């Protein structure tokens, strides 16, 4: 049986492996790891059902791995290998799978999530959209909150507030607070630390049940981004002093064994996926020139 700890560790080692592959020049393009933020999707996973729609963003590997037990499919997508979730076309930040979609344009998914919530209204299912603190700069976020509240839609907005957007600290980008902004639209808002999976579930279980009946909710998690924004572009100092669940939990009984298991699992996924042939895409018969 996969425990929450297994899942947290899987995501942690998956992300570390990506940075490692980048450093070795074995990955092309860019990728945004969720190092330090793993608890959020893992805590939410059992609160979301198969009929719910999840909208993820550029920092979405944890969102995906918490919903689907498919590290090989995700890595193949990122590496453009056979068995990739989207044939290697979308890559790290553009993934589509039943009940799951991610895209790399900030704020774009929120109106779409409102549309999905409108579709799902009355069914008991909800639309859940992950956004970062920086994405609150986009006007589409506010138009969406207004619509969701106005129309009584089952929309759950999960904010991973890591205090930074690329290199811009929140203080340079946000006036006021997320909570006050939600209040202005009459949208329920809860702020939570992201350090204890079961505490998060205890708080959110009744709130998410209310979302399903048409009361939109914004949950704001305080998280730490422990890695660079994408790869090797961190301008911060003092990152190693930030709180890390991985360090905090390392004394828990069974941690060392679970950690070794996850590391080995990711290691074998990396070896296996790297050995696969390049992905093929139906659109390959291309027409160029005229």
């Amino acid at each position, binding site marked *: 049986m996969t425990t929450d700890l297994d899942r947290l560790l899987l995501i942690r080692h998956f992300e570390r492996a990506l940075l490692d592959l980048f450093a070795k020049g074995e990955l*092309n*393009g*860019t990728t945004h790891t969720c190092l330090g933020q793993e608890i959020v999707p893992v805590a939410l996973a059992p609160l979301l059902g198969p009929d719910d729609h999840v909208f993820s963003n550029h920092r979405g590997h944890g969102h995906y791995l918490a919903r689907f037990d498919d590290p090989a499919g995700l890595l193949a997508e990122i*590496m*453009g290998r056979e068995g*990739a979730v989207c*044939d*290697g*076309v*979308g*890559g*790290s*930040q*553009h993934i589509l799978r039943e009940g799951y979609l991610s*895209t*790399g*344009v*900030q*704020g774009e998914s929120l109106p779409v999530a409102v549309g999905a919530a409108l579709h799902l209204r009355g069914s008991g299912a909800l639309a859940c959209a992950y956004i970062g603190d*920086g*994405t*609150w*700069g*986009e*006007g589409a976020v506010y138009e969406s909150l207004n619509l969701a509240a106005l129309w009584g839609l089952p929309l759950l907005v999960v904010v991973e507030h890591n205090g930074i*957007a*690329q*290199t*811009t600290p929140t203080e*340079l*980008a*946000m006036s006021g607070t997320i909570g006050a902004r939600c209040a202005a639209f009459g949208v329920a808002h809860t702020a939570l630390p992201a350090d204890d999976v079961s505490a998060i579930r205890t708080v959110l279980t009744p709130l998410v049940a209310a979302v399903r009946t048409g009361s939109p909710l914004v949950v704001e998690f305080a998280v730490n981004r422990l890695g660079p924004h994408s790869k090797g*572009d961190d*301008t911060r100092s003092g990152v190693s002093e930030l709180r890390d669940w991985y360090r905090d939990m390392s004394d828990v009984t069974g941690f060392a064994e679970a950690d070794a298991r996850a590391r080995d699992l990711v290691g074998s996924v990396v070896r296996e996926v790297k050995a696969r042939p*390049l*992905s093929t*895409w139906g*659109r*390959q018969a*291309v*027409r*160029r*020139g*005229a």
Partner: protein
Amino acid sequence: MRVVENLNHALHEVLAANPRAFLLGEDLLDPYGGAFKATRGLSTRFPSRVITTPISESAITGVGAGLALCGDTAIVEIMFSDFVTLAFDQIVNFAAKSVSMYGTRVPMRLIVRLPTGGGRGYGPTHSQSLQKHFIGVPGLDVYEMSPLHDNHAVFTQMIAAERPCVFFEDKVLYTKRMHEVDDLFTWDLTDGLARVHVDTPPDCVIIAPGGVTHRALAAMRRLLLEQEIVCTLLVPSRLHPLDAAPLVAVAREARSVVVAEESTAGGTWGAEVAHVLHRELWGVLRNPVALAHSADSIIPTASHLERAVLLTETTIHDTVLESLK
């Protein structure tokens, strides 16, 4: 000097020369200096006029238009040109119309800088070449960065025109060297049009924006060495409105003309250029103007898939051969 340094230098010059010049964009403060480092050093030197912004492309472009409306010079950086769609209203319906729709001309010194294009595996929402969506907007000038055009001269021209401009910067150029062409060719620059050529009259004239320069040169080299086909490359700095006369003068003498760009197929800049040339040279051209561009497709992330979609040296090479048949 690399292209990004030349661009950085131009931005320094603009801000130094005019105490009412502003630069706005995401993540452009030092030490980071912008996602592609074009703004390095600027926030340190001009802290009150180099403004890092929230992720608000529509608003910051509108803010730039507001500064320009009040007589300032505003340069707005959109981190990836893909996100300029968010600012489309401010550019097309406000900035470009303000120079004309109030009956008298309102000078607008607004430049929207747009890091553009693929080839880096950034995926479908971070790799597009959206120039074509800005072609033919009355009141809006479309420029593209080039390794043959000094950026300070281009910025001086854009500012002097007092019309809003979008300035596309092909991301693959940043790390390339300025003013460097293959030693098989010589080049010159006249009134914003760069011409790369050999001494003999060309079989084919290739017209391309700056971002395609190196791919076009590589194709020209191969054509010359392998098949003795002589090409002249013309790189205009301003893509729209297009100064057609010098293009027409060169195209008139050649057996064929190819317009090459990275845009995906359909409604391209090249189609507009071809139309102008057909109108001017109908009955003179020996072949229809041929277009080389990327496929009619989104731009995939994986490099082997991306390569199959984007305009390459080979696309240009093959299109030139086809055009001479």
